[in-house]
């Protein structure tokens, strides 16, 4: 039997997923430790709870699970900081802003995703390469009822 110490984040688990983001989030440097909900009761959303300080949370979405095309590229420096050698080790979380309960007003930040090394659970909010192609407030659901495509915004 093959066992793995890699957290299987897509599988329901009672294990707590504690993510450490030593430099904090951009503009919120005090938020450095989070617990990621291991299984979501409201896909595609997952709750990322702040562990220290105020009792608050941030909603995140794995962008590649809802978008047709989001070929994430990060800088070599960020990959090094995170100890990422293989793209498959990266858990990518887009920060969601819920301006209203109407899905038309739910946006995700595609410019500055939180990238986490699944093996070490070390994370960083990075700026993606070619950031001009993406929006910090990408509407999750477009008028046609499907997932909107990030590439449409470049035109």
């Amino acid at each position, binding site marked *: 039997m093959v066992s793995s110490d890699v957290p299987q984040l897509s599988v329901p688990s009672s294990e707590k997923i504690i993510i450490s983001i*030593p430099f904090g989030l*951009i503009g919120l440097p005090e938020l450095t430790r989070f617990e990621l909900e291991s299984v979501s009761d*409201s896909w595609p*959303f997952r709750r990322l709870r702040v562990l220290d300080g105020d009792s608050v949370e941030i909603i995140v979405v794995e962008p590649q699970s809802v978008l047709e095309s989001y070929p994430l590229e990060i800088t070599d420096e960020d990959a090094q900081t995170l100890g990422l050698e293989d793209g498959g080790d990266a858990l990518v979380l887009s920060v969601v802003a*819920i301006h209203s309960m109407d899905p038309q007003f739910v946006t995700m930040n595609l410019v500055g995703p939180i990238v986490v090394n699944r093996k070490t659970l070390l994370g960083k909010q990075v700026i993606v390469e070619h950031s001009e192609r993406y929006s910090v407030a990408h509407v999750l659901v477009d008028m046609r009822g499907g997932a909107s495509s990030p590439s449409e915004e470049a035109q």
Partner: protein
Amino acid sequence: MLVLSRREGESIMIGDAIEVVVTRIDHDSVKLGVIAPRQMAVFRHEIYRKISESNRVAVRPPSAALPAIQLPKRNP
């Protein structure tokens, strides 16, 4: 605000650890190189502003209700 004149190839130091180099000057733009410790994040100001605003909007009370969204899963 401290204002310094620099030519192409010259640089300034901010403290002991951060160096900002003027690498190229065109008509209306300047290319800057930044040498800084890894924990010092360097951003274009407008990107920093947008992302920090978006992060602040995203912080919410725990376990608050979420909108119901119907989307096809890309990677089931």
